[in-house]
């Protein structure tokens, strides 16, 4: 009985350690050689809007509400928080959004509350790094329009902070690209269509990053 109790205590301790490690990134990221950090957050809000020949409006919304709910469920599955962060981390972020070499990427698995996105003007993490940026995925939006077809649009926000903890530069914009497979037809194999969402999410970020670099160059940053 004593042995069992000891093992259970150890297991609980280990579980706590594991949990603590899981959140360690959020709490105290280790400084990179350059001392720079980029904190990334996934989007919480997924939206789907299907419009027919009525061109939108409440009647159109009612007609397509079932399809839009299915699309939202699939967006939330294919682009859950780890998937969004993995997709961003798999890209060369330093080059894409012009970061200092050696910038440490810090993942935040929990999305930010969407309604606080523009209100909070201070750092969204506790980091005191002298060179600090944030990349926030604000919205993931699927749209099907009668003329334009199907597309996935993603709203990104990049904020670079100065030494006095104020936002020195902010760039918020959409990236959007067409979809060929998503949404899958009912009862058909859906895996390729869900994988397409991830690849188009990446393309959207590349498009956004290109525009962000152009904007930064114009401001001589």
């Amino acid at each position, binding site marked *: 009985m004593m042995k069992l109790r*000891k*093992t259970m205590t*150890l*297991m609980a301790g*280990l*579980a706590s350690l594991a949990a603590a490690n899981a959140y360690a990134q959020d709490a105290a990221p280790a400084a990179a050689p350059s001392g720079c950090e980029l904190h990334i957050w996934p989007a*919480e*809000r*997924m*939206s789907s*809007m299907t*419009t027919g020949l*009525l*061109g*939108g*409006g*409440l009647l159109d*919304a*009612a007609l397509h*509400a*079932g399809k*839009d*709910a*299915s699309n*939202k*469920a*699939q*967006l*939330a*599955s294919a682009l*859950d928080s*780890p*998937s969004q962060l*993995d997709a961003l981390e798999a890209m060369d972020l330093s080059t894409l959004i012009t970061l200092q070499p050696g910038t440490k990427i810090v993942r935040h698995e929990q999305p930010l509350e*969407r*309604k606080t*996105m*523009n*209100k909070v003007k201070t750092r969204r993490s506790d980091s005191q790094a002298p060179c600090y940026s944030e990349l926030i995925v604000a*919205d993931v*939006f699927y*749209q099907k*329009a009668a003329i334009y077809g199907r597309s996935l*649009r993603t*709203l990104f926000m990049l904020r670079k902070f100065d030494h006095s903890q104020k936002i020195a530069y902010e760039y918020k914009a*959409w990236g*959007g690209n067409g979809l060929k497979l998503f949404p*899958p037809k*009912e*009862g*058909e*194999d*859906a*895996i390729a269509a*869900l994988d397409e969402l991830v690849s188009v999410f990446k393309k959207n970020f590349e498009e956004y990053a290109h525009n962000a670099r152009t904007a930064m160059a114009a401001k001589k940053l």
Partner: protein
Amino acid sequence: MADASRASLAATALLMLFAVAPAVAQTSASAGCELHVWPSEGMNTVLQTAFDNLYTGYMTPGGTTPLQRVGGESAPAHTARAKPEEPLDPAAQTKALSAMPLATMLGLTDYRIVLHDTPLDSRTIRTVKARYFASDAPCYADLVVSDLVYSRVYAHGRDLKTFLRFRVFGTGAAPTKSFGTWVQTKLDLFSLDPPRRDEAALLELSSAFAANLETFSQLLAKKP
């Protein structure tokens, strides 16, 4: 090595064993073939209201608006990850799955069913192309309840959506067959908003889960 370290290592090993050990071996089989089954993390939620796209600014009462005019900062997300207190948690799914003739439903009659009670994480499901469980069985299949979603939709009602992934392996590293799709069953009694969780409602939810598995197996049977 200190006693504490040794004990810690032993406990770690024990934990790893718990993490990978299958919960239940449902049936015995002759051919040494195995069907591994995983539940999802729980029931996610999706709501679609009449005004969703108005709140986000994607639409006006008269039609769509250009994206540049989006101003709906306070529009709710209306998607939520599973909460521990919701019904159809992994244990409830495993219980429901153990009551189904899964091998027959999936056309794998001589397979031994191994039910796992710890869900796979989404990264594993998404990226691992080989067997999810390190089994050396000569024939192996896996069925993953990837997502369970309670959905309430304006003008359409409530339903339970399930995304299932199924793969069959021979002796090679890559699957010889794979299929993944969404299925859904309408809910008349069970509700999260307003909450209705009496016995009849919970039974309906459990039945909807079973019906989704049944629909999936029928779609799978149609695949060449």
